């Protein structure tokens, strides 16, 4: 499991323990026994809620090893244990499960790479380079966050039809990729990170005779690795779990 903890630039939350102000207030002495009872009760509730989060997943894993008549029974040990379900999933689907996983992985990987690369380029330009119209373009980028995907369904589908990127394997993969190639949040996240890097480093590079692209590629990009990693994780997970655009663009039997 990858909790997006490295996404510190966007959400400054780590899953690591951290002291807090409320704790100091809450753990004031109230009388030893009362405090302990309350504490135990709190932990019971917490663990109960955590189980509520996990049990359905555990249940699915357990059930996948059950036979069909056994699957409706409320037992936690499959009887008998069978691989029938797994066999059906791997061999009974057309196209096969491996193929489906490969599709998802391929699209997610390509989209992740384009988002990191294009996001870094645009993020650097918006954070550091001065050019006329920069602010206006950046506002346009942010405004796209407000446009619901579904409103774009018809026009985007239409544009992809014009470009010949629908219904025609394998170019329809390209259709999904160009729609998802860059998102405003990737640019925004990387730009915010670039803004926190001191300017001295660029000036040093400039004195050493580096041009804008060299400075970007050799100096700034390596420094932005944490933000790039955050974008990569968020994008890969988002695309892997994505449903809407693949559903629309890959409307052929072989998706």
């Amino acid at each position: 499991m990858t909790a997006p903890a490295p996404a510190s630039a966007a959400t400054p939350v780590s899953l690591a323990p951290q002291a807090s102000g409320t704790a100091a207030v809450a753990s004031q002495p109230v009388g030893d026994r009362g405090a302990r009872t309350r504490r135990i009760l709190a932990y019971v509730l917490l663990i109960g809620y955590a189980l509520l989060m996990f049990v359905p997943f555990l249940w699915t894993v357990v059930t996948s090893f059950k036979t069909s008549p056994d699957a409706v029974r409320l037992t936690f040990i499959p009887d008998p244990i069978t691989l029938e379900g797994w066999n059906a999933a791997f061999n009974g689907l057309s196209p096969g499960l491996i193929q489906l996983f490969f599709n998802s992985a391929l699209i997610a990987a390509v989209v992740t790479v384009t988002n990191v690369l294009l996001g870094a380029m645009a993020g650097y330009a918006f954070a550091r380079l001065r050019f006329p119209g920069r602010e206006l373009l950046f506002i346009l980028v942010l405004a796209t966050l407000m446009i619901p995907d579904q409103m774009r369904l018809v026009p985007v589908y239409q544009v992809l039809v014009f470009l010949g990127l629908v219904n025609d394997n394998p170019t329809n993969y390209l259709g999904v990729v160009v729609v998802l190639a860059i998102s405003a949040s990737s640019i925004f996240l990387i730009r915010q990170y670039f803004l926190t890097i001191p300017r001295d480093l660029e000036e040093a590079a400039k004195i050493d005779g580096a041009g804008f692209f060299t400075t970007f590629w050799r100096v700034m990009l390596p420094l932005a690795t944490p933000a790039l990693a955050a974008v990569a994780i968020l994008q890969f997970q988002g695309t892997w779990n994505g449903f809407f655009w693949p559903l629309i663009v890959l409307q052929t039997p072989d998706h």
Partner: protein
Amino acid sequence: MAAPAASVPASRRTLGRDRRQEALAGYGLVAVPMLLFLVFQIGSIFFAIYISLWKWGPLGPTGLNPFRGIRNYQTILSDPIFWKAITNILYYAVIWVPLTMAIGLFLAVIVNQKIRGQTFFRASFYFPAIASSAAITTLFIFIMGPEGLFNGVRQALGVNPIFSLFGFPSNYNWLGESRTAMNSIIILNAWTTSGTFMLFYLASLQSISHEVYEAAAIDGANAWQTFWRVTFPLLRPGHYFVATVAVIGALQLFDQAIFVGGSGGEPNNALTTPVLFLYRAAISDFNFGYAAAVGVILLVLIMAATLIQRRLFGQAPSW
């Protein structure tokens, strides 16, 4: 920021060239992303508005007299199924948004305390949020079916008399009956999304300075008072951010609806949402002009909701 004039003193010529190179580098770096945004985002709004005025099929305008003006919009607004979809989504938003925000805030406050196993609890509360909507909805259909885990558990707990009091038989199909289908989706999405809202609220909670809590403690406030009088009001930027994200997300409900009820929004249009309605018009009926008009209405609805929230809760968050 404008490019320097053509004739510059010799001493400043190198500076001017530098500036021009910088601007060129800037345009070069943003060119590809901006082109994609213009085609697939900004341009798509105008294209959608244009298409919505026509009778439009997958290959462009269709029929003898394809221009329809505002008649697509008139047809939509007089379609009872569309109003059913609007009612459904408003019901969903009104219940799901406060419910999920409350759970998310509650979890955030709990895991922000000094407790043992804090990392474990944070991770496990966030856990359902990383599952894909497809996987978790399939799992949920399995749990809520007539012979699913939920009915099995209430049988085992012996609480069925209480349920039958409300008219739910022991093999009730929670997602297959119109009176519980949408409520079940609300519970599903509250379960999966509360972890995400917990993370947002945690970020907001940790930006509150310790000093206010110390002051509250000195004034003798108990934990309950501290939460309602200090934490809750100071979380205002957090509430604003989470509420905005939640409402925008709620109005776009689609994945869970189509997995459970198919493109027909079964049972009996109980799960037909505006996006599902749009999808049906576009993909099942190939009525692109009509679907584009639904999309434009949806955009207006979402922007109106966002603006109303801005008015109600004020400033955008500072982070």
